[in-house]
């Protein structure tokens, strides 16, 4: 741990900024603070932080514009901080290239978990995601074997259809991160498929009946209502 990870926090509310930076500093992160979008964009280019925590409601420019502009030249992980009941904003931010979101109000555990996930994916993003998948993924009793294209629950082989396997392996590759409905549909059914969530929902219901002990209380694949799906963190 030679260098601390630098977190750029873009937040205009002093109270929230203070509490987040206290948590981050005490967990050994370096903190950069920006109060508005313009400053944030400047700081991204001059300091190259390891992760950006971005509040969408900024006083000067739309938070979504910040995502858009950063993504034109950088793949720095962006975690969007948003108020509840704004599913559209969350989805828009994710589709523009934000990596994840966290909903206000949130606790310190949640914040740290999201940052860890984002950093881990960032570390692997340049090589691993682009390459064909090999190896295995574990979370709890769920195992995805990318070589054999098989999924096991507690050691028992689960028979998934082609599309079901594609969905599970896609989610497992981004485990811990939320993937929007659109992202999943485009990856599984191709870029020209219609934006109908229904078929994805039906597939997900079938997957859950195969891999979850209780589809009404899932342990592996969680729903983020109105946004998408998230698989439990891998081990």
């Amino acid at each position, binding site marked *: 741990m030679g260098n601390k990870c630098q977190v750029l926090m873009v937040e205009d509310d002093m109270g929230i900024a203070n509490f987040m930076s206290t948590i981050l500093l005490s967990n050994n992160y370096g903190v950069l603070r920006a109060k508005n979008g313009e400053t944030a964009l400047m700081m991204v280019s001059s300091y190259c932080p390891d992760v950006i925590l971005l509040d969408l409601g900024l006083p000067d420019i739309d938070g979504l514009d910040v995502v858009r502009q950063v993504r034109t030249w950088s793949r720095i992980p962006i975690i969007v901080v948003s108020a*509840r*009941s704004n599913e559209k904003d969350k989805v828009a931010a994710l589709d523009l290239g934000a990596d994840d979101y966290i909903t206000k*109000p949130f606790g310190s555990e949640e914040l740290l978990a999201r940052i860890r996930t984002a950093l881990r994916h960032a570390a692997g993003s340049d090589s691993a995601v682009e390459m064909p998948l090999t190896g295995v993924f574990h979370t709890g009793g769920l195992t995805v074997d990318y070589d054999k294209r098989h999924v096991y629950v507690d050691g028992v082989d689960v028979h998934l259809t082609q599309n079901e396997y594609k969905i599970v392996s896609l989610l497992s590759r981004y485990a811990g991160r939320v993937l929007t409905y659109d992202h999943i549909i485009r990856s599984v059914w191709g870029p020209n498929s219609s934006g109908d969530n*229904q078929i994805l*929902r*039906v597939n*997900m*219901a079938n997957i*859950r*009946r195969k891999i979850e002990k*209780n*589809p*009404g*209380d*899932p342990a592996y694949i*969680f*729903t*983020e*209502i*109105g946004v998408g799906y998230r698989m439990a963190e891998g081990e």
Partner: protein
Amino acid sequence: MHLPKKKTKLSVRDAGISFGIFLFTCILCALLRFVGGHANYASMLFILSVFMTARFTEGYVWGIAASLIDVLTVNYLFTYPYFHFNFTLAGYPITMICMLAVSLATSALTSRAKLVERIRIEAEHEKTRSNLLRAVSHDLRTPLTSILGATSAVIEHGETLSQQERVELLEGAQEDACWLIRMVENLLAVTRVDADGGGQIVKTPEAAEEIIAEAVAKFKKQFPDANVQVRVPDELLIVPMDSVLIGQVLMNLMENAVVHGEKTTHILLSLTKRNNRAFFEVEDDGVGIDPEKLPHIFDGTLPQDNFSHINGKRSMGIGLSVCNTIVRAHGGVLEAKNRPEGGASFSFSLSITEDQNGQ
């Protein structure tokens, strides 16, 4: 107070009513003529029909139209010479003026009565809202006071307090803040139902089991000790709803089971399909609901000192009345009962088919 502008559009319904009344009167007059032969009552009956038309339709248009048509009809069909217009009849202008006057006066009275009714409903709405606002403000003050007290105690007397005392004070503040967040979520839910003033909501088809799963996951985050069991059917139920609001209902019902069940150890949240409706039920094994309070449990009118601060736990009266509002806006009914084996049960059902009858 803002009143919606009266619709000037002519509705099909009103056209039907006007035509129906007209036809009925014509047939009645024709029948009476076969029986009696005398024609004087025709004018009277048509005046009555103009009155009815003006009474049961919106605005003035249909009443006036009816009075004109009726005058002509009486003239053409039911006065000598039959099946001819004759505008030289004695007293004809008077009949005409009478009918017009009846129509105008009735329409005016009716519109006025309808306006008064609308104002009354609006006032009622306003009253419930201000009642809710008062209850909420009252409820918000208590935890805010305790947060303020705890934090200033730590800031001002931090050195003289023991570590444990500080932690206890801050934990109290944390608990109160969590409660405030839940309360605010409820208020946001109410405004979402109330957004257009008419209690309209936007329904989208959602997988019911996903809504349940998310509500349970969130609930477990807030109440890690709660023991919640979930049961969903094998069939995937796609239900048109506002997912945020129904999620809020389920959260409130589970929270209610924990907070007011007092000795609740198990909560069962189940989803079943009954008569083409998705049936949601939250059951607990707590102390159940006081039978005296059962009829008033949803309307938020329970006396504050009776219902709040049971065991130091704050009122869920607002949470339940929010649930009721949301379920009603979805075209369902929230039902509460005590289970024979002990504990309370709250249930509601939503239509699975796409028809937007919840309007």
